[in-house]
């Protein structure tokens, strides 16, 4: 089936769904690199006009990547919940956009609809929406998850404390953890990107984190972001694993380049559940994604990078994740060129993830070769705070000295909590109060109370 749109005397024709999705996408460098972008501003809007008229059911009949060759497509089709879509199954993409913004689409209605939406439907509707609309709809959606604390409650903002160190030095990492905790960060998790993927290093770091958490009874969870096969190996060795991390993408081929398959994810999920380490709940998977990863691995099949990204979310929702993190600006300017493209992509990812029913957070970030700076991060940070993002990163001074990119800082998190009246996860906030780190207005306290904490936290 083809699609078309006539503007004046010219008729634009789009061969298939993946073409119309790509041409309707707001401009970004990665789609240009893949040769998928609209040839003109007019063609882009023509594609959006044509896309608005596509019936939602068409997405169930026409896959963007063949069912036979891609297990992500099979997952999407085989697990689609037709009953959840039933009330709006006669809608077009344009109808869906109008309805999402209506007052009928409240928190409960959006939650009920979520399993009925495929990632391609969600990607399609996001392409018709302005930034404020992506914010407005996302804000209506609540996705609450639990492990040792509760993340995603309305009015709350959590932070992943990211204390990376270029040589995985225990004292260096501990120094950053102390700094972060004393600035009120760490409720989403304390999560280290190890400099190497060696099982021994990962085990050493996991023991260290578990020791700190136990000693100070911190109601949070830990993660060392090693490859999932490393984590599985460590689970078998009784190393204390809280959250199970993996980077994933939206096509089978791209996932293969990450060294993951759907059965492997299932195996790791079940292994994590068997540990029963969560005290309040059993959400324990931590996924990272990012637009451009499918193209970067040569596995995009001519599908635009944002649609590939939402297909990754379709994978994550099968494993009841604790957190899903779009690492939006990390991949570089060949995928998202500047602050404008990063901000747009960040709002799309957050909206699409939430609409897919996921606990979305974001690494609001950029590299030094992208045309972006900390002002752009402030803008995206503020917008995502307004949109109700579940968590952000807390990196000392926003400067990751191991991964060499810039993210958001502990100070940034305090800023967002203050201007929007947001609070840490309730269990963690109680701990911060008890330790004398903050007062009940959320202000950070100074004074001797913290001395004992940081003196004791630093490994000998």
């Amino acid at each position: 089936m083809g699609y078309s749109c006539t503007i004046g005397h010219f008729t634009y024709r789009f061969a298939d769904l993946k073409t119309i999705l790509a041409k309707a996408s707001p401009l970004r460098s990665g789609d240009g690199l893949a040769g998928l972008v609209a040839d003109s501003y007019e063609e882009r809007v023509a594609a959006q006009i044509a896309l608005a008229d596509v019936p939602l059911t068409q997405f169930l009949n026409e896959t963007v990547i063949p069912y036979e060759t891609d297990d992500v497509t099979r997952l999407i089709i085989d697990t689609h919940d037709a009953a959840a879509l039933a009330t709006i199954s006669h809608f077009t993409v344009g109808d869906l956009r109008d309805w999402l913004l209506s007052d009928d689409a409240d928190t409960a209605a959006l939650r009920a609809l979520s399993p009925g939406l495929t990632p391609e439907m969600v990607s399609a509707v996001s392409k018709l929406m302005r930034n404020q609309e992506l914010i407005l709809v996302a804000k209506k959606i609540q996705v609450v998850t639990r492990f040792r604390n509760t993340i995603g409650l309305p009015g709350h903002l959590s932070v992943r404390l990211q204390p990376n160190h270029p040589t995985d030095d225990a004292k260096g990492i501990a120094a950053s953890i102390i700094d972060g905790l004393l600035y009120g960060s760490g409720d989403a998790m304390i999560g280290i990107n190890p400099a190497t993927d060696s099982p021994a290093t990962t085990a050493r770091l996991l023991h260290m984190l578990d020791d700190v958490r136990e000693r100070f009874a911190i109601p949070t969870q830990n993660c060392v972001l090693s490859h999932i096969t490393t984590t599985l190996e460590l689970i078998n060795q009784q190393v204390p694993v809280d959250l199970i991390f993996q980077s994933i993408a939206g096509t089978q081929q791209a996932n293969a380049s990450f060294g993951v398959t759907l059965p492997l994810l299932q195996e790791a999920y079940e292994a994590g559940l068997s540990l029963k380490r969560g005290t309040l709940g059993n959400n324990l998977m931590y996924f990272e994604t990012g637009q451009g990863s499918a193209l970067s691995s040569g596995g995009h099949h001519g599908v635009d990078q944002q649609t590939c990204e939402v297909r990754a979310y379709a994978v994550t929702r099968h494993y009841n994740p604790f957190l899903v993190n779009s690492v939006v600006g990390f991949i570089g300017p060949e995928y998202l060129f500047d602050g404008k493209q990063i901000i747009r992509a960040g709002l799309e990812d957050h909206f699409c993830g939430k609409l897919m029913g996921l606990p979305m957070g974001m690494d609001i970030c950029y590299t030094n070769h992208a045309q972006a700076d900390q002002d752009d991060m402030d803008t995206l940070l503020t917008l995502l705070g307004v949109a109700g993002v579940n968590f952000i990163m807390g990196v000392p001074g926003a400067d990751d000295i191991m991964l060499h990119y810039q993210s958001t800082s502990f100070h940034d998190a305090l800023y967002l909590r203050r201007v929007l009246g947001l609070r840490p996860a309730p269990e963690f906030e109680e701990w911060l109060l008890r330790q004398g780190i903050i007062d009940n207005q959320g202000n950070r306290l100074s004074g001797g109370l913290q001395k004992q904490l940081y003196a004791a936290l630093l490994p000998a």
Partner: protein
Amino acid sequence: MNKQKKTGLESDEWDALKAYTDARIALGKTGVSIPLRESLRFRLAHAHAKDAVYSRLNIASLEDDLAPTGLPICAVHSQAENRDTYLQRPDLGRLLDEPSAKRLQGLNSTPADISLIVADGLSATAIHKNAVLVVNLLVEQVRRAGYSLAPVVLVEQGRVAITDAIGALLQPRLAILLVGERPGLSSFDSMGAYITYAPQPGLTDERRNCLSNIREQGLTPIMAVNKLMYIIETAFRLKLTGVELKDNGGLAAGEVPKELE
């Protein structure tokens, strides 16, 4: 009048922890915000990194500085016309533009053992700070070891895999590419070295060996040249580079940073 300034700045008690990490910890605060001093320090580091990304190779000065090697020097350009195209189209940075390909063919040089290539990559600044010393030292040692050298190729807007396009024309047994690495906030002048045995189009990065962080405060040029000589000798003995050339001198194989691919 000598009024005391009450700006609200507070330092952090755990300042001593800075001894354990270069991370930006114990920055202090005013309200919940970062002190201006730290904000400006960050901005300056970012400015250095941005200037490095947009820095350009000064071909004439490189030619002068490399003249002592006595080697012919050939300046070429990738298919990425300018920096913004280079940043968005890594594929073009891996290919030679047409005049450059003709120029290399016109050299009619007999295939040599080793081809030296110097490319701006993501920091021409890194090249200007480090490449001349490395090339001069390396040429001396390579000659002493009895290897022949192809003309030195200087590349503007080049990425790592342009090695293969150049290799296809000059047919060296082995190519060494010196390239500016993606600037970080803590270093904007780091140079990388990539060693490729039998370079030809279509090679993937696991077929190369890489030395990273070559600069005075990192892997010094002298140490880098020693490591390079070790890799060169080993590569000729094993007739390969990449993941199968094992890490005995602290070198990483096949670990090409994504941004340099």
